[in-house]
């Protein structure tokens, strides 16, 4: 009986087609690049800060010019200053993914309910999907790419690997960004507090207990 579910057999012919294959990411990158090219046609020049005053936090004050199209912003992401012309509707999440090509930060629900998009702004974890990129001038944004790299992992990244704190991995960068921020937040040492502190990061695979183990290991060492 040949009633097995038919699966596309990708393993055999994958090496042969590797160079021709359009991956999901390369496809999106090409589309994204085209999008940017179109976007640059609509640029508006920057006319920052009508007063030139610095606000209390040292950020430039004033008006972001938006006659009809894009706004010009300077964003500090992972220590690098980026000059960007973006639609004011661009969320911080879409900005880092689509404009800066930092695709480690993931889009899950896009409504602040899952935590996959967690990044740090001035050292504090936030949902980048519920924040407009253009409001973050003068602030320090850190994404998963900014806390560690292959060969030089952040202790939390290493602990997630060691404890199998993931299965599919989609939520993982958000989990790790949350977990790194948690290290400096006023929570007790209990597992219960870790679970409460991490409740804004949903893991569909249910790797929760391993995530708690990973975080607790780093907390004990730090």
């Amino acid at each position: 009986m040949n009633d097995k579910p038919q699966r596309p057999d990708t393993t055999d012919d994958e090496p042969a087609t590797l160079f021709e294959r359009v991956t999901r990411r390369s496809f999106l990158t090409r589309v994204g690049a085209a999008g940017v090219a179109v976007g640059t046609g609509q640029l508006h020049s920057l006319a920052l800060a009508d007063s030139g005053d610095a606000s209390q936090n040292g950020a430039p004050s004033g008006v972001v010019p938006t006659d009809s199209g894009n706004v010009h912003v300077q964003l500090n992401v992972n220590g690098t200053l980026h000059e960007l012309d973006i639609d004011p509707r661009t969320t911080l999440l879409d900005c880092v993914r689509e404009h800066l090509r930092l695709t480690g930060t993931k889009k899950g629900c896009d409504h602040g309910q899952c935590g996959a998009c967690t990044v740090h702004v001035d050292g504090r974890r936030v949902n980048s999907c519920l924040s407009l990129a253009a409001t973050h001038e003068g602030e320090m944004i850190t994404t998963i790419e900014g806390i560690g790299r292959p060969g030089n992992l952040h202790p939390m990244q290493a602990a997630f690997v060691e404890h199998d704190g993931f299965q599919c991995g989609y939520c993982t960068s958000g989990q790790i960004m949350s977990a790194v921020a948690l290290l400096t937040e006023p929570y007790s040492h209990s597992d219960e507090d870790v679970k409460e502190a991490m409740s804004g990061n949903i893991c569909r695979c249910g790797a929760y207990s391993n995530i708690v183990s990973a975080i607790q290991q780093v907390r004990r060492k730090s």
Partner: protein
Amino acid sequence: MEHFQLKRAADVKQALDMAMAPTGTAGPANTQSTQSIRFLAGGTTLLDLMKLDVERPTQVIDIHRLPLDKVETLDGGGVTIGATVRNADLANHPLIKAHYPVLSQALLSGASAQLRNMATTGGNLLQRTRCVYFRDTATPCNKREPGSGCSAIGGFNRNLAILGTSDHCIATNPSDMSVAMTALEATVHTESPEGKRSIAIDDFFLLPGTTPERETSLNAGELITHVTLPAPMPGNRSVYLKLRDRASYEFALASAAVVVTVSSGRIDHVRIALGGVGVKPWRSHEAEAALLGRAPDAPAFRAAAEAALQSARPQSQNGFKIELAKRCIQHALTLAIQTA
């Protein structure tokens, strides 16, 4: 999301000027409850609703860096809380933890750590309902589109209100912070081109009646600048208890904020506010009256619970909230008395 003009205000005056002087294709200056101008602070409600096309501002004024980010003691013992103080900062502030634990507990029971890092005091006061019909532009909703009808009455209303509802709206106010502030008798301070106002929190929130689209007493171009709390009653004990479908990161099915003072074995001061069951943060004068002068014991707590829910009107799916809210009040009072 529809296109909008984004502006950034450096101070309160600039924010008010921007709200009064729209440019481009925008219509006349308008209130926070209409569709043309919105102040953006943490964005956790506003951006969410803009993505759903529930909010469609033509101008967004970024106020998240206004110099309103301090928590300070007032002469006379109270505290003043700036409108842009983050929920996490307020919850963990030493003054709040020491003197207003009910507020700290309420804030920490709400949302997630990420959202609490973003959400502000002023924004939390203006948080919109989680009623699914309000969030779904394909369905009628009197709050979103006045006169279109209420889909929740007879629809999915398990998480909606049983106190203060009208035939036009049964949406629950989702805030935890505002419930604690109601029990603490907070005052909301605003500024507009017409001047400054101070509004008792119970007057700040409006009942839906026939105008559920109007949720607060804020006027055109008016900005919340800060919230003040009166000095805590000496010897008071306070607790926020929240009951919900999940252990964390979920809105209340019922919650209770209690602030109680006992002297010589009698309750001589008590404030009770409920969340998750009211169309606004629900101050229960009835429960307070049932407790005043009585010994803090189980029969008194049950009497208060009965009094608080006496006027409850259940919908097709949320009748369970009546007993749930009663037990929430009883348990919160029990915990408060134990917190010696």
